[in-house]
């Protein structure tokens, strides 16, 4: 009964966390569905009807799509971070700053040739990072964090874009400059000269590289589209800021380059010079401040392009407007998902007489509107995130404009009775309507794609915080509850369901559609309310205790708080570290530092409290003779502890050599262990590493076996023991073979290769099968106890209680006696000399629980190692060693500070839980992972599948298991924190035995848990709650960081991925925690049944 209650309440708590997390995610993640459709040349939006034939007449319209092209070539010069202020020129300025008045060529052209050259303000949509901007400039949409349907593994653009349209319509695209483009458009360019862009300190490599090629390319004739991306200005900004002489040099260089390019531009070529974003006064960018968003756009054409009237202030143009403009000017289809609007200036003026310009503009706008409308229709078909009413309005507007346009066109041809003036007016009106339509569409999309839902985020955070608080409270006071199920389960669930039901009713009555997520959140909120209401109001003894703490004199208050302060203070420190991008980037080191600090602090605190020295030693002037021999044991314990401390530190330090790098870290070398064996060049090196990984695997399994042997769990002939004896080595052998085949060089005979292909698929299957068999066996019978009955007669093993023969009556009192007896004989087994006294000996009874758990843990580890690359086996060995040394430290420390018979022994202290959770995070990094999407080990999905998958679920599962391997292992190993002090009890009392024979208190190890089933359950509950709390607080911190810094320039690179990884790791961890805890309950049930059977046998 208690077991079920505890499992259910843990599940319920997890549900509370999930509800908060879900609500936050719903408000935080900007999701846009990426459509894979492409615009095609054939699918003309406006059939070349009469209007088109009459007026679309550019000479070479046969190579144009949708609209006759005006230019046959275009040069796009991207000057990264070309702020509008850089391009502005004011001759009246007396003392120009380093970045002012440097691009004189733009000014001269704009003033002297107003019909050919013009400067615009070029508004970028946030996030103003180069890659997102290039995406925007080529697809014409707004980038969001997760473009559903995009592929995380490669950065290639999946949506329809300008480059693809150029390529599809047989234009030769030549590219030079920033190699980001190569990643975004792989294999699209006719010719390309990419240069590395990553080193911010390098101002010249990219620019010089571009300058080397650009003039010859412009003069040659084998290109139609030329894209050149200069990075120097941006890097100069990052390095020195805009206000620095280096910037002046850089801009002067750009000025010269522009002058030379303009001199070389031919008549049919359009020149576009643009900045992808601006920069702040410190030279950075990424956010949405005015300085970052305002870039410059300069357009030059050798032929007259603009109306002669020069606007006083440069016009403001949105960046995505460039996409349809360029597409129509060059006669290619507008990319499918574009929501930009053609630039009116580029279509109004020209050589053609006055009135017809408007017709041309209207046509361009009409094509643009048709394309946007088509996109909106198919988008709203796929995704539902655009507001319905707004869509209806827009649709109406569009159909009206369409009708008007058709009217105008048909009216224009035959009947020439309407005057030109009237037509002109109608065209103007139509154009403004179309412009209005396009603008409204863009605003609507911006609103629904680029806005956070702040109220959802806020309530999500509140729910998460409440869940953390509840975990903390339950873990602190679980032992005082009288009726667990009422406080933990009944009241919260009833309250939660009631509030959920109320919300549903309200939804029904008011007729609104109710989102299931919102219902869950209402349930969670109600549950929190119910929990606190009953905790603080009705339950007197609990609130008494709580108020007693707060009312006690300061001295005591301090004491009760200082118990928590060490570990929780460090936890708090870790949480605050999540708000700084540098700490998140170096999180691996930060966590290991804090982990080491916690463990050292624990040991030092033991010393401070004088646990190493015998109390009598504390008074220093005791004569030598009186010194208790027990002090020897204490000193040995101390050295033992120090030894494990050093071992622990060494494990942490060595695990550092498995760290992967993130791109934010300069001069960081990714661990050589991340490369698979087959990529090693020299066979000697390969052999060495192969042997290294095999031996670490073998050592791992050997150590586990040794542990089983040491605690006598390998004596019985149970199936499980057989499996541990034979199955483990078998799995190891399989893995060795698998790795050997994997690492084998490519150049082998065809026959052998076929065999290899076979093996690569079959062996992982075998391993998987073995592991599953192991799980089933453990689940079926997790007991590894060997009972040896060496009695000659039916001697009284059990002293019958009151002479009653009724078994149930007896069992209560008999159970302790049985294992007291058994334990006695086990002592004999441990100390090595065989006792003549006939007894029933139960080998391995003291470690039934942990033996079962360790079996599961080992199986899981072997499975996870298989999903990693072979060289990571060493990291997993380190993980086990670190876990083991920590458990030893923890066990010893517990035994030194609390007597085993004490009831406080059943609580796992905060430092242990925190350190355990930190170790999980540390080994997340030490198994070669990083919380960024490019760092995910995708090849884990292909272990055992050479061809690929039919569904998405299995590979996602495999990659997830790979990524969160350490979180899984530590979650599964979590109950060991409770069990280990009981196991360590053996040693400590054995040590005592050396000194004094009189210690009557015998070790019962994990049988103490059996003795106190209720305590055991409560202890598990407490442990689970604490572990959930530690994870939950970290999750809360990263959620808050993502929410508060959502406009930070690093949010999409650092905080948001970190938050997503944290959220996923929390979910994975909690699921495995629940599984482990139910497994522990299962073991407990089996053990108690086993005892019952034993008693039945004895009583016969």
């Amino acid at each position, binding site marked *: 009964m208690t077991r079920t209650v505890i499992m259910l309440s843990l599940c319920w708590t997890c549900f509370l966390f999930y509800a908060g997390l879900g609500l936050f995610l719903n408000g935080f993640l900007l999701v846009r569905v990426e459509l894979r459709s492409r615009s095609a040349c054939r699918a003309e939006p406006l059939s070349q009807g009469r209007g088109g034939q009459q007026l679309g007449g550019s000479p070479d319209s046969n190579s144009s799509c949708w609209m006759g092209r005006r230019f046959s070539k275009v040069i796009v010069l991207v000057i990264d971070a070309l702020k509008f202020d850089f391009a502005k020129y004011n001759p009246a300025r007396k003392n120009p700053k380093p970045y002012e008045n440097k691009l004189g060529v733009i000014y001269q052209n704009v003033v002297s040739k107003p019909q050919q050259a013009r400067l615009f303000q070029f508004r970028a949509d946030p996030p103003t990072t180069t890659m997102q901007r290039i995406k925007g400039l080529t697809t014409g949409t707004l980038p969001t964090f997760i473009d559903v349907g995009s592929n995380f593994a490669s950065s290639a653009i999946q949506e329809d874009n300008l480059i693809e349209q150029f390529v599809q319509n047989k234009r030769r695209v030549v590219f030079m400059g920033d190699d980001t483009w190569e990643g975004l458009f792989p294999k699209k360019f006719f010719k390309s000269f990419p240069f590395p862009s990553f080193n911010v300190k390098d101002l010249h490599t990219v620019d010089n590289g571009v300058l080397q090629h650009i003039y010859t390319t412009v003069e040659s004739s084998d290109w139609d589209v030329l894209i050149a991306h200069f990075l120097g200005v941006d890097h100069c900004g990052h390095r020195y800021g805009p206000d620095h002489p280096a910037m002046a040099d850089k801009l002067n260089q750009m000025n010269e380059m522009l002058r030379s390019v303009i001199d070389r531009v031919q008549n049919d070529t359009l020149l576009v010079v643009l900045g992808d974003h601006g920069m702040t006064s410190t030279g950075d960018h990424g956010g949405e401040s005015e300085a970052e968003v305002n870039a410059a756009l300069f357009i030059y054409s050798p032929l007259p392009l603009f109306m002669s009237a020069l606007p006083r202030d440069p016009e403001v143009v949105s960046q995505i407007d460039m996409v349809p403009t360029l597409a129509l000017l060059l006669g290619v289809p507008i990319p499918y998902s574009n929501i930009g609007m053609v630039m009116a200036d580029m279509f109004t003026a020209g050589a053609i007489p006055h009135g017809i310009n408007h017709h041309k503009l209207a046509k361009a706008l009409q094509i643009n509107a048709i394309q946007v409308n088509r996109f909106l229709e198919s988008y709203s078909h796929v995704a539902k995130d655009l507001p319905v009413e707004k869509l209806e309005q827009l649709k109406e507007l569009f159909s009206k404009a369409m009708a008007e346009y058709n009217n105008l066109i048909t009216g224009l041809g035959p009947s020439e009775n309407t005057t030109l003036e009237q037509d002109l007016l109608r065209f103007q009106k139509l154009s403004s309507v179309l412009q209005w339509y396009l603008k409204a569409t863009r605003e609507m999309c911006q609103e629904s794609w680029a806005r956070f839902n702040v109220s959802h985020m806020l309530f999500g955070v509140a729910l998460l915080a409440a869940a953390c608080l509840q975990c903390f409270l339950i873990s602190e006071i679980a032992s005082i509850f009288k009726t667990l199920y009422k406080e933990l389960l009944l009241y919260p669930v009833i309250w939660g369901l009631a509030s959920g039901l109320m919300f549903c009713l309200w939804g029904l009555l008011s007729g609104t559609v109710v989102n299931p997520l919102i219902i869950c959140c209402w349930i969670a909120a109600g549950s929190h309310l119910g929990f606190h209401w009953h905790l603080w109001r009705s339950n007197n003894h609990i609130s008494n205790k709580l108020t007693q703490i707060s009312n006690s004199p300061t001295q005591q208050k301090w004491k009760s708080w200082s118990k928590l302060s060490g570990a929780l203070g460090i936890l708090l420190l870790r949480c605050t570290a999540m708000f700084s991008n540098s700490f998140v980037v170096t999180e691996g080191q*930060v966590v*290991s530092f804090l982990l*080491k600090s916690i463990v050292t602090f624990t040991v030092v605190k033991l010393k401070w409290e004088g646990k190493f020295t015998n109390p009598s030693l504390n008074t220093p002037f005791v004569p030598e003779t009186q010194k208790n021999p027990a002090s020897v044991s204490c000193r040995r314990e101390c050295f033992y502890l120090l030894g494990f401390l050093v071992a622990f530190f060494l494990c942490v330090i060595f695990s550092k050599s498995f760290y992967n790098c993130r791109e934010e870290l300069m001069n960081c070398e990714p661990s050589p262990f991340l490369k698979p064996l087959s990529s090693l060049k020299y066979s000697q090196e390969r052999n060495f590493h192969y042997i290294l990984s095999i031996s670490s695997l073998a050592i791992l399994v050997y150590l586990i076996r040794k542990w089983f042997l040491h605690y006598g769990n390998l004596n019985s002939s149970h199936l499980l023991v057989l499996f541990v004896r034979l199955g483990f080595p078998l799995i190891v052998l399989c893995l060795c073979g698998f790795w050997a085949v994997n690492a084998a060089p490519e150049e082998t005979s065809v026959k052998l290769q076929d065999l290899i292909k076979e093996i690569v698929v079959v062996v992982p299957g075998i391993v998987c099968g073995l592991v599953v068999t192991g799980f089933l066996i453990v689940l079926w019978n997790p007991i590894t106890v060997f009972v040896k009955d060496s009695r000659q007669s039916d001697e009284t093993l059990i002293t019958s209680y009151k002479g009653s023969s009724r078994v149930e009556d007896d069992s209560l009192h008999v159970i302790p006696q049985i294992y007291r007896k058994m334990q006695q004989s086990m002592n004999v087994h441990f100390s090595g000399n065989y006792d003549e006294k006939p007894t029933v000996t139960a080998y391995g009874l003291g470690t039934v629980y942990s033996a079962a758990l360790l079996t599961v843990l080992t199986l899981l580890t072997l499975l996870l190692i298989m999903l990693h690359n072979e060289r990571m086996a060493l990291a997993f060995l380190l993980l086990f060693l670190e876990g083991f040394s920590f458990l030893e430290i923890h066990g010893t420390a517990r035994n030194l500070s609390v007597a085993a018979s004490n009831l406080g022994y059943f609580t796992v202290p905060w430092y242990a839980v925190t350190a355990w959770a930190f170790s999980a995070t540390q080994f997340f990094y030490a198994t070669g992972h990083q919380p960024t999407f490019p760092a995910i080990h995708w090849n884990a999905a292909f272990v055992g599948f050479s061809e690929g998958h039919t569904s998405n679920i299995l590979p996602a599962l495999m990659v997830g298991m790979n990524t969160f391997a350490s979180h899984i292992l530590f979650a599964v190993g979590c109950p060991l924190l409770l069990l280990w002090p009981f196991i360590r009890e053996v040693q400590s009392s054995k040590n005592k035995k050396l000194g004094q024979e009189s210690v009557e208190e015998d070790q019962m190890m994990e049988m103490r848990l059996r003795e106190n089933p209720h305590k055991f359950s409560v202890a598990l509950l407490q442990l689970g709650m604490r572990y959930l709390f530690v994870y939950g607080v970290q999750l809360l911190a990263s959620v808050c960081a993502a929410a508060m810094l959502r406009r930070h320039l690093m949010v999409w690179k650092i905080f948001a991925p970190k938050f997503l990884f944290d959220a996923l790791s929390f979910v994975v961890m909690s699921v495995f925690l629940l599984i482990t805890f139910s497994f522990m309950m299962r073991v407990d049930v089996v053990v108690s049944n086993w005892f019952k059977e034993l008693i039945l046998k004895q009583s016969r």
Partner: protein
Amino acid sequence: MRDLELRGMVSAHCTLILALLSATFVTPLILEDFHLIGTHLVWLCVCSASVTAVSVILCLALGTSSVSSKKNFSQKVTKVFRSCVLFSVSCLVFHGIIVLYGAPLLESLWETFLFAVLLSTFTTLRCLCLLGPSLHAWIRVFSKNGAMSIWDTSLQITTACSIFGAWLGAIPIPLDWDRPWQVWPVSCTLGATFGFAVGLVGAPLWIHWHKKQLTYKSR
């Protein structure tokens, strides 16, 4: 009695703080191109040296009055020798601990070692001065009920503060501010020094405020 001792401690601590300050502010007058952060290692050496000198002088001045006047010469020599050995061992131990805490093992070996020396000066040297070269006494002092005089209490406080300061100093290193004091081991040494100074100031104050609670076992 207690007040007298306390006054003595205040003056001793003041001298130590003066030593720290003079190492920082007087040396630039003598040495050219001296800067707290720019030539950090020089400052480190000067600081350790001055603290060592002041501590030893204080120790001798106070020590002659209380304990070791009647000891003969050879005993004194062995005592001094033992102290030197202990001090160097503690430097090595600190070095090891710092490396275990994540300092680079091979690069900037010298910096790490000097940092260890500084920490030893702040902790071990004071132990040597106040308790003499006996490990037993050291182990005794650093536990909850181990202090037997206000000097022991002050030793506990200054040691804890120095080490805590060094620990805190490690925290801002990963930040991307690119400040000169974020270079290893500048922030840690500054933290340790600052912690030491705080400990020196705080110990007498703490003892003063907790006069009533402090009960030492009589010798």
